């Protein structure tokens, strides 16, 4: 786990422009590289950091911030966040200036029809990778399943689900439920 700030910057900048649907869509790629190839952290740490970031308020780009923070403290947080933001923000700004005036509606519609299914495919892929990384026991799998149903079927704020799951896991741990 020897990541210099320039490694961190290069890594997240390379993800910025493929984050179709936001930072959550890049979780499989982050996991593949950070955990499997570069060995910057293990599965449990990766899953834990993402869980902590999702419980905090704000746009999901802060998932990247917490990974940068874990690797190199406050400087890592700043570098990772900026590297993830700058390329896509520049693109959004160019779009705002150039394309808004000349946008051909049919082309917009076509691009959206192509990218929308890719976005949900990526999010589901993230879900699969996160489920595997967070999987400790039958209890964690049940939590994952229950939360997916809660989000799909109700309009409850997901934060309640996350807090309830954390509470349930603490109680299970205290009761001696084999977790790790």
């Amino acid at each position, binding site marked *: 786990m020897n990541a210099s700030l320039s490694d961190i910057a290069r890594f997240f900048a390379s993800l*910025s422009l*493929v984050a179709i649907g*936001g930072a959550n869509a890049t979780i499989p790629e982050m996991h593949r590289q950070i955990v499997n190839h570069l060995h910057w952290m293990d599965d449990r740490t990766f899953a834990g950091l993402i869980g902590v970031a*999702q419980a905090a308020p704000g746009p999901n780009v*802060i998932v990247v911030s917490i990974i940068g923070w874990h690797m190199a403290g406050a400087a890592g947080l700043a570098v990772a966040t900026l590297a993830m933001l700058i390329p896509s923000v520049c693109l959004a700004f160019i779009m705002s200036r150039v394309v808004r005036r000349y946008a051909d509606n049919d082309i917009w519609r076509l691009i959206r029809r192509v990218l929308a299914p890719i976005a949900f495919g990526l999010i589901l892929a993230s879900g699969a*990778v996160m489920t595997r990384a967070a999987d400790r026991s039958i209890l964690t799998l049940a*939590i*994952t399943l229950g939360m997916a149903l809660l*989000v799909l079927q109700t309009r409850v704020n997901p934060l309640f689900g996350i807090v309830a799951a*954390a509470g349930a896991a603490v109680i299970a741990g205290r009761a001696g439920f084999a977790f790790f």
Partner: protein
Amino acid sequence: MKSLAVPSPDYKKSHSGLFLAFLKIGVCGSGGVASWAYRVIVEERAWLTEAEYAEMLGVASILPGANTVNIAVLLGDRYCGFLGSISALSGLLLMPIAILFAIASLYERFSFEADVKHAVAGAAAATAGLVIGTGLKMMRNLKPDLLALASGGAIFVTVGLLQTPMTSSLLIAAAATLVLRVALERRQ
């Protein structure tokens, strides 16, 4: 003559107005900022009509990066140019990053406690479920046809299950879907 009216909050389309609007979106948006962006921009400040917001969201959603981040850039630029984008973005990210920093520091200090380990494991499992539920919801709202299902499914299997490199998988899937989609629309 003195007015008794409470000074109206800063809803102006200025740098500070943008900053404050997105500050609120960032702080309130626990478990997803998207619905708060709509609430603040359309319902509360009436900066955009529902149709204008939908159009802007359409552009934001085909751009890479979080939708709300892109909306901050687009709306900031529309009202105050480049620096407006920066004002909106800083408002959006300031508090979430400060809160994250606090949570992360606490987590680091107490991460060896059994209770904390268990709580984080539970939260991580719930988060995985949150992401799966969100993906399924997106799929349901999209009402995908066969081609859309096939392209989303292919991405899910390759990137999610086989863990192939994301950039190349994405480019191949997008190119193939584009060609098939154009062919399909030509035939109709």
